[in-house]
Structure formats: structure tokens, C-alpha cells
């Protein structure tokens, strides 16, 4: 059968492969090459070695964006997962209206980041106005504003995944633990959490990468103001490319560092939590 299929490479694989080369492979390798060059477009690139990477050190906004993003990611990963898990636990108990609550909490996920940003811009500025402040008054407001926005957007999504995980636990396992005299706390710690470990792996992975890669919401909510202080990594890279002339090379070098960061975080996280997964 393999032989018969093999000849069909042009029909089955080629369209995807060509698009994949245009959309990913070519830009990716060009990007790595360009990070070692001085350029304004692709055609005028001149090799300059590590100049771009050295130049980043003189740019304080990048370091600030890194710590801002790291802090944001830690806060959102913890809050989103804890709250989503708690909500999932409550909604898997047979209470009235579970389906309705699930529908409502999940809804913000379908709304795009730009739209979300402006919705919360209105609401948060309205609240802050009572204390005669605005979102862009200091980066602290921008930070917590963005945290609230992300909680609103992502808790529903993660909750759905946790609910599926909890519902997959065989009921006899829980009954057995009950008969053995486990109280609620023990049941949660020794049965439920180990059994939903795969969901925890997925949700921490998603919240981690979503936090690190956040762009649209950041752009629409504060646009990095006041003076780049609420700027996250993705927006910082974008502004380096398109907001400063002569910094294209440094922007690409930042992008390479950003890629390595995201890749390392994703792989380590996956390795760490998937080790803790158990079989029933």
C-alpha cells in the first residue's frame, strides 16, 4: 500500500508543504540569519555578527518588558489555574444551573484580544475615574488591569478542561476512597489532583505560553503606556521593529531570544508536570 500511496506526494503533501515553507520555514530561518545582520528590508542585509545582541543590552525597555512579562505570567498562571480548578470542582457537584454557568464563563474566550482590550479599557477606566486615576496613570494599574482581563478571558477555557478531567475519574475510585474513610481534603489531595494531572499539565502549559506571548490585549488595553512601562515582551519586540528606525536588527535579535525563552519554558514545563501523571 505504501508504494501505491507514495507516488501521490504532489497531491497530498505539496500544497501544505509549499504554504508551510512560505509561512513558516523560510521566515524562521531568514529570521535567525537576519538577527546577525544590519538591515531595513530583507534584501539589504549586511552581516554584522553579534552586534544586534550586544545592542539589546543598551536597551533598558527590553529588560523591563521581560520582568513585567515574567511577573504577569506567574500571577496569571497561578490565579487562572486555581480559580478555574475551584470552579470546576464546584460545577461538577450536582448543583442547579451548571450548564448555564459553564456557557457564561466560557463565552469571553471567543471574543478577540483587541475587542477584549477595549471593553476592559472602558470598564476599568470608569472605575479608576472615581479615584481620579486612569489605566495609563502607572504601570501598576496596567498590570492588574491586564490580569483581570486575562482572568475573565481564560478561566472559562481552563475550567472546561478541568471539568472534563474531573468527570473522567472513575467513580469507583472515589467511592473506594470514601469507604476507606478519606475526608474531603484527603480525597482532593490523594485522588482528585493526581487523577487530573494531565489536565493540569495542559492548563499550565496553555496559561504559561498565553501569558508569555500576550500581544493583542496589551496593545488594546494600555499600548504600553505610560512610556513603555506596561509593555510586555511581544509588544516590545513589535515596537522595536516598527517604532524605531535603525533597530530592525535588534528587534530580530530580541525575537530570537523570545523564541528561545518560550521554547525552553514550554519544554521544561511539559517535562516537569507530565512526570507527575499517574495511571488509575
Amino acid at each position, binding site marked *: 500500500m505504501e508504494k501505491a500511496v507514495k507516488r501521490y506526494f504532489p497531491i497530498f503533501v505539496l500544497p*501544505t508543504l509549499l504554504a508551510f515553507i512560505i509561512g513558516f520555514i523560510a521566515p524562521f530561518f531568514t529570521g535567525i540569519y537576519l538577527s546577525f545582520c544590519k538591515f531595513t528590508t530583507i534584501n539589504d542585509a549586511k552581516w554584522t555578527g553579534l552586534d544586534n545582541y550586544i545592542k539589546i543590552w543598551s536597551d533598558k525597555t527590553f529588560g523591563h518588558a521581560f520582568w513585567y512579562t515574567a511577573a504577569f505570567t506567574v500571577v496569571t498562571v497561578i490565579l487562572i489555574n486555581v480559580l478555574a480548578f475551584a470552579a470546576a470542582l464546584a460545577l461538577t457537584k450536582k448543583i442547579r444551573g451548571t450548564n448555564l454557568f459553564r456557557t457564561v464563563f466560557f463565552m469571553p474566550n*471567543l471574543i478577540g484580544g483587541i475587542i477584549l482590550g477595549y471593553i476592559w479599557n*472602558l470598564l476599568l477606566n470608569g472605575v479608576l475615574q472615581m479615584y481620579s486615576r486612569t489605566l495609563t496613570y502607572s504601570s501598576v494599574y496596567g498590570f492588574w488591569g491586564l490580569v483581570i482581563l486575562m482572568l475573565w478571558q481564560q478561566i472559562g477555557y481552563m475550567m472546561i478542561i478541568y471539568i472534563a478531567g474531573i468527570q473522567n475519574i472513575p467513580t469507583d475510585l472515589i467511592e473506594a476512597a470514601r469507604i476507606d474513610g478519606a475526608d474531603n481534603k484527603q480525597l482532593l489531595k490523594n485522588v482528585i489532583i493526581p487523577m487530573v494531572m494531565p489536565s493540569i499539565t495542559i492548563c499550565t502549559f496553555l496559561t504559561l505560553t498565553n501569558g508569555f506571548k500576550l500581544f493583542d490585549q496589551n496593545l488594546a488595553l494600555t499600548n504600553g503606556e505610560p512610556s513603555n512601562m506596561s509593555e510586555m515582551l511581544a509588544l516590545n519586540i513589535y515596537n522595536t521593529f516598527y517604532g524605531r528606525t535603525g533597530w530592525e536588527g535588534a528587534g530580530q535579535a530580541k525575537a530570537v531570544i523570545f523564541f528561545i525563552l518560550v521554547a525552553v519554558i514550554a519544554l521544561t514545563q511539559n517535562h516537569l508536570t507530565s512526570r507527575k501523571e499517574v495511571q488509575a
Partner: protein
Amino acid sequence: MKTKTKRKGAGLTVFFSVLSLLWVYPIFLVIENSFKKKVYISKKPFAWPSGKMFTGLSNYATGIQKTGFVQAFGWTLFITVCSVAVIILCTSMCAWYLNRVHNKVTRAIYLLCLFSMIVPFQMVMFPLSKIANMMKLYTPWGLIVIYLGFGAGLAVFMFSGFIKSIPLEIEEAAMIDGCSPLQTFFYVVFPIMKPTAITIAILETMWIWNDYLLPYLILDIKKYKTVSIAIQYLRGGYGSIDMGAMMGVLVLAVIPIIVFYLICQKYIIKGVVAGAVKG
């Protein structure tokens, strides 16, 4: 004992009901403000649009006119539907081939697809926009090609996961009965993959419909806008936003999504769960 748990359940229901109301409040607030005059939106965002604050539908009219919202909506719909259809068709065929023909090339393509999933967009952003420009892909049709390329990783990965579970005997039987590989794929394999295809279609739709940066960098903005681009366009110069037009456009952008969601929420939630488990 029993009454105690029952009361607890009722308490939870009340708690979550209040929380649900809070959850939809931001959207309600935007709708409320879309009927207010511009000046009152930032001054009194929480006031009910009554009396001299009320402007009827004028915010919607200026919003639509300023952003070209109708065209933007049409283009977004066109780009999303076509991209998702192309992604499903091409990547399912590709994934099947990669799993049925084993050699170094197919292995390499598969690994590159996996690899592409952890690469953030900013890494390829600049070269991609230049390459797309050189190849004249700055139209919605060109954008579809880019979406196929950039969305291929996840889709190939998810289809592959499912194809590995299909017993080979079914396809061999079809081939012995005289099906060509194309017929085998479309009459036998693709129908089995339908649930996976729906999951992928949902995930890709959610991504493409809401995507801002990729279309913004690729498309010729003067001619083509998507909904997200049109909204961001209202920001204009530094800090000056026409809040009235903004509210109108936000409502117009959100309502279709909510209606769509309420109609197919069963599939969407199922798709998200299935996608998460495989991803």
C-alpha cells in the same frame, strides 16, 4: 446530613448566579454605552443612557462609516471560512500521507510541524511580512496561503494523532477492492476523521477570526481590513479615540460571536476539550 448538602448546593447556585451576572456585565456595559453621546461615555460610563445622554443609533452609524465595518466583516468572514476549509482539506491529506509513507522526508516534515507549534509569531513576524510582500500575497487570497502555512503545524499534529489509531486493514481492504489512494482517502479515511476535523476547524476558526497582527502586517490595509484591524484603526493618533464610534463597533463585533456561540456551543466546548486533550 442530606439537607445540609442540599442547602450547600443552593448556596453554590446563588453564588455562581451572581458571578455569572458579573461575568456578562462588561459586555452589557459596552451595549449600554453604545447608546450614549460621545462626551458622556468617558465622563459617566456607568450611568443609564437616558435623557440628553441618549443618542439612538448614531454611534453605530459613525462607527460603521468610519471603519468600513461592513466590508471588514465581510472580509473577515471570507478569510476565516476559506482558510479553515483549506487548512482542513490540505492538512488532513498531508497528515495521512506523512503517516502512511515512511521515509526521511516525511519524518522531517512531521518534526518541523511539531517544532513550528512552539515558535512564537514575533520570531517570524518581520521576515514573513517581507516575504509575503515580495510574493504579492497581500490580498485576502494570499492571506489564506499564509494561514495554511502557519496553521499547518497544529492541524497536522492533531490529524496525525488520530490517523495513528485508524486500523490499516480498512484502507488495505479499500485498496484491494480497487480504490486509488485518492478514493481511499476521500471515501474511507476522511469520513472517519470527521470528529477530529470539526475540533480542528473550531480551534482554527477561533484563532483566525480574532487574529489581529498577522492580517495587519500582511494585508494591504488601505484596501482590506478585518474586524480586529478596523477596531484598532479607531485608535488613530496618540490616545485620541472616538469612544462613541468605538462602542458601536464593539457591539457590532461582539453580538455575532455571541449568537454564533449560543447556537453551536455544544460543539465548541466539545471541540476545545478534545483539542486540549490531544494538544
